[in-house]
């Protein structure tokens, strides 16, 4: 979700293996890849691109912990402080009976929290319309994009050459 438009030079590849080799080559040549787009998750791509592992599971753990504690402590508070009632001669603090709800609320908090976090950090949500480079990227094309806003003619030509050399079927410029 960029405010101003960016000039993007991108190449479309037909196969994920060609794409992986191209990304590897770009890294060796120290080219600054803006982003890589693909119709499905390409395995090994995140390592080659040097993406750090997603920390979304850590967030999930924290949300789960919040859910777990709030459910358990709330039930404890209700049955020991706020309105103690004896059910079937059991103690007010009958921790075992709190387990099912504690578990469910833990899962609920972790899942909802993680999903909301995922869409937020990806800049996605209902009705959000992020610009896309090519309609075929969600179909059968794999795309390497370079930011060429501040690149001069020769730099652009070199990038074009790189894309064609590594097997890109099409090379285009688009401002998004």
């Amino acid at each position: 979700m960029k405010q101003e438009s960016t000039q993007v030079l991108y190449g479309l590849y037909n196969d994920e293996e060609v794409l992986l080799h191209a990304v590897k080559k770009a890294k060796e040549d120290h080219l600054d890849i803006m982003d890589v787009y693909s119709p499905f998750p390409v395995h090994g791509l995140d390592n080659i691109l040097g993406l750090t592992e997603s920390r979304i599971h850590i967030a999930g753990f924290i949300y789960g912990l919040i859910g777990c504690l709030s459910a358990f402590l709330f039930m404890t508070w209700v049955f020991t402080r706020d309105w103690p009632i004896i059910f079937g001669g059991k103690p007010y603090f009958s921790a075992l009976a709190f387990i099912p709800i504690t578990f469910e609320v833990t899962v609920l908090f972790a899942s909802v929290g993680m999903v909301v976090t995922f869409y937020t950090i990806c800049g996605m949500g209902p009705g959000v319309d992020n610009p896309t480079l090519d309609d075929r990227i969600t179909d059968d094309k794999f795309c390497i994009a370079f930011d060429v806003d501040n690149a001069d003619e020769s730099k652009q030509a070199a990038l074009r050459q790189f894309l064609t050399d590594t097997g890109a079927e099409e090379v285009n410029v688009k401002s998004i």
Partner: protein
Amino acid sequence: MSAPISAIREPLITGSKTYHTITEDICGPTERTPTTAWVIAFIVAVTGLALYVFSVTWTIWVGIGSWNLNRTINWGWDITNFVWWVGIGHAGTLISAILLLFRQKWRTGVNRAAEAMTIFAVMCAGQFPLIHMGRLWLGFFIFPYPNTRGPLWVNFNSPLLWDVFAISTYFTVSLLFWYTGLVPDFATVRDRAKGLRRKIYSYVSFGWTGSAKHWQRWEALSLVLAGLATPLVLSVHTIVSFDFATSVIPGWHTTIFPPYFVAGAIFSGFAMVQTLMIMTRKVLKLEDYITLEHIDSMNKVILATGSIVGVAYLTELFIAWYSGYIYEQFAFYNRVMGPYFWSYIGMMGCNVISPQIFWSKKMRRSILVTFFMSIFINIGMWFERFVIIASTLARDYLPSSWSYYSPSWVEVCLFIGTLGLFSTLYLVFMRVAPVVAVAEIKGILKTGGDQYVGPNIKHDNAHKESTQH
């Protein structure tokens, strides 16, 4: 999760598909005018839905007295239907979550539709406890909200309240999991569409671009959600079984209930998945994605869970005898020989005896046999819940209050109505969303496509060094 699948496995995608033909095949049906078969099915389904609306209105207008429940048998078709529908839902989560953790690649062909089935089945299930309350407009009393009566809280020690939490959590988590999987595929549909269609799919695809970082997060999220959904799905039917098992009614008060209910749930759910998949693959011409291999795999799960259920039935009988406790013994004698003996026969016949046919590979791979078996199993599992609920309640401790129950027309219409509700939702889903997970199928093409693996392997693809790992 990409070790090449075993050489003895058959290809999971046939017809030498390319990435583009996959998109065409799966997104195509959402773009064409509905077929006559779909329109007829939809009219039937909506008629069922209308019947549902009518019988719910009738129940609320006249009151629960319009059902044939009585003092002795106070749970009948309503709770039977509730447990049946929840059970059906379980297969979707099993396919999408547990098989994801076990890295079973065949799940990709069926997971989308199975998850949709889960969500719709849980929606149908949720209706029954709500209507059963009688005064539907006070339904929010089941949630612990700060109220002006004290506040007076709900009973957190009650299995019925655990159920409220379990079912609502299950519904929410399944919906989120399913929708997150749908987002990239909605983006595929969006990028093929024009005009208003494009606007609508653009709205529901949340601005998906297919960026590498997004895919990485998406996979991480899917894996953790699967990890959460796995214990969740086991907990849901465990808690449903607690509704019975924590009571002191002979025949209900047994420790075998949780595993036995979970196995039964998976069993009936897979049967429903088979029923739907056999029709879906035929109508939408998806035989290349939902292959005989998929049907075979699911029939193996049906055979395994059906046998677990069978062992559970026999264990119950044995333990009832072995306990030496006359009330328990009578409860089970009554189940087999009592006034509802016919439902016990239906249950045993459909759930235990008939699935044994699947020991034969030929039967497992026969579409016709599978289809009829899936219907049998759904009937059998409905009988199981009816046996547990009605036959147990009909003969309680006090012979003077023994009773017999058969449903009123309202209860029958409610059940048929939920089938209408379910079918309507499923048919709409078939029209508007890709019924097979497009992105996930593309991800397994090179390890599951028939031009890469199996007997029809093409030589230009053989011995190709794969960068997948």
